[in-house]
């Protein structure tokens, strides 16, 4: 078994209302920053043991499917490194 680090990014699906992003954008505007698009996302860094990189990625994706993401509103990306 090898040790891997999975970086999991959970974000809202395209077109989903992101009220927090909108509030942040307003706050930035109040500080004089002009932003075209702003979205929020959540990143999880998880270390795990697996046979190989593909298995580690598959395991991290199962974590997204089972708990970390809500398929109604979220999309996710998994990057795995040693």
């Amino acid at each position: 078994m090898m040790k891997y680090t999975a970086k999991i990014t959970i974000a809202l699906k395209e077109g989903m209302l992101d009220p927090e992003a909108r509030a942040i954008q307003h706050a930035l505007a109040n500080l004089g920053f002009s932003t075209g698009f702003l979205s929020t996302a959540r990143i999880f860094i998880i270390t795990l043991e697996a046979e190989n990189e593909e298995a580690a990625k598959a395991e991290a994706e199962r974590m997204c499917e089972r708990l970390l993401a809500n398929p109604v509103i979220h999309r996710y990306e998994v990057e795995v490194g040693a």
Partner: protein
Amino acid sequence: MRFAVVQFGGSNCDRDVVHAVSDVCGVDCDLVWYKDGITTDYDAVILPGGFSYGDYLRAGAIAARTPVMEGIRRHAAAGGLVLGICNGAQIGAESGLVPGTFTTNATPKFICRPVCLRVETTASPFTRLYREGEVIRVPIAHKEGRYVASPEVLARLNAEGRVAFRFCDADGNVIPAANPNGAAENITGVLGGPAKNVLCLMPHPERASEEVLGSADGRRIFLGMIRSIEEAGPGA
């Protein structure tokens, strides 16, 4: 007849619901710690409001994946009554008892106030004692209560009469101005289960179950459940 109210760490409306069911409606009601599981044959299970697991990850997400929910899903699949209120509704949606999900309000802040709801269907155990189109007054108290579902799911809910309640104005008009959290189609109560035997709603009927609380409009949800259980008879 016996109801169960499931208590998670962070539940805070559990005792209010027990009071509404037992003292107000006169039915035996157990407070069940989630780790103890649902071991008795209950006629109805209620997931109360609160902040289970501190709303970590997403409201209701972690409670929805605790072992007690497997028993509750089986109970619901067999036609047993399940009522999810506020955080209980979030847990119900996260565990697939109803489609869609409840997420951050369109204005991302906690809203706690009475609202008007229009009863969309009376063809469920929870809504049978109302009149279709009736406007009732029940409080909401949430930050993650905006109902979201795909267009396909919304179409199915409408076609199958699985929308129980929509936010409306005092005259029963379902309009954006009467939508406190930006919910899709003003929906705030969704029916699930094979026989519309699951209701997940964001408003708190237990907080509107006695006149002294300012409204007793929510009481008929519990009374409707009780009536349905009585009609089904013992052992059903």
